[in-house]
């Protein structure tokens, strides 16, 4: 049941982040830069996918950015 405890902790962390109402709110017309594709979190989608697959098969870690998934007998 220790997993449940850690999940609760994670949920708390997320709740803390969502409470960032004190952050200066970025106004709609200030989003020009954020709307650029270079600023998308996964702007290098295929690069990331290829990297994730290489590192998944060569190292002992995986995931983090998104689901690690199963999907290959390389590790």
């Amino acid at each position, binding site marked *: 049941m220790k997993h449940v405890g850690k999940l609760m902790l994670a949920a708390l962390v997320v709740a803390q982040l969502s409470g960032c109402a004190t952050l200066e709110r970025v106004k*709609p017309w200030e989003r020009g830069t954020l709307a650029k594709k270079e600023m998308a979190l996964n702007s290098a989608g295929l690069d990331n996918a290829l990297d994730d697959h290489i590192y998944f098969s060569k190292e002992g870690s995986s995931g983090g950015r998104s689901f690690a998934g199963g999907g290959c007998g390389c590790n």
Partner: protein
Amino acid sequence: MTQSTAAQPTPPTTPLQLSATAYGWLGQFRAMASPCEILLGPCDELMARQLCAAAAAEAWRIEAKFSRYRQSSTLSQLNQHTGQWQKLDSETLSLLQFSKQCFELSDGMFDISSGILRKVWKFDGSDNLPSDDAVAALLPFIGFDRVELTADSAFIPAGMELDLGGIAKEYAVDKVGQLLLELSASVEPSLSLVVNFGGDMLAVRPKPNDDPWRIGIEHPGKPDQSAMLVALCAGALATSGDARRFLYKDGVRYSHILNPKTGWPVQDAPRSVTVSAPSCVMAGLLATTALLQGQQAKEFLQAQELKHWVID
């Protein structure tokens, strides 16, 4: 409207007012000698205020840059340094290139260098017509084909004067529309939006269910009459007319619509033309060019296959 009246420049400090409407929000301010409105669909008040503030800022920016009434404007600077090559920023260059295309498309009738005729034509409702000689003396300084444009500079022959009054407001409507579209895209991608600068307007996004926007526009020449109601789903509307600006002599009404080739008013032009088109600059250009066709205005408009309204 095409030619600006000799209105006072609008100070950018004109307050922006936001009020709730039955449907959403209405932002109001003044720019380019016109009452300006931003109509928004339902959204939160802060966002409405922010969008309207951005719209006003953009309108005032364009006014400050392209007004011929401001000595410091980019346009005034251009007119003060004729007879030499001048570097242009990309926005000014785009406007001049667009003006050149319009000049060519309209066979020389739409000419942003024709404003110089105001030196002799005073449309004050009086019977003071200029002399033939006075008009003829100005003709050598008219003709946008004599303005040379390169990828980054322009050469305006000495003595000429450019006036963007014929497209600046329509341009501002389109630019503000585009700005609002972008600003709201990530937050409220379906927010209904209309930009209306003194009757030149753009429905940036339609209302849901294709419910039309119903917008009152001033009847050209009859400002006291109740506004005519226009239903607009999407796209732009622009109106050109001679409003109160005319001369009257010996039973002849001289419209303020001047033929740049002769320097004299176009005969038998309709009192007002309203055109619906995808963009406001396009609607405005077509309305103005139609007026310049005089008697052939309706024929010209019919050939465009766009919705239009003509008041004789």
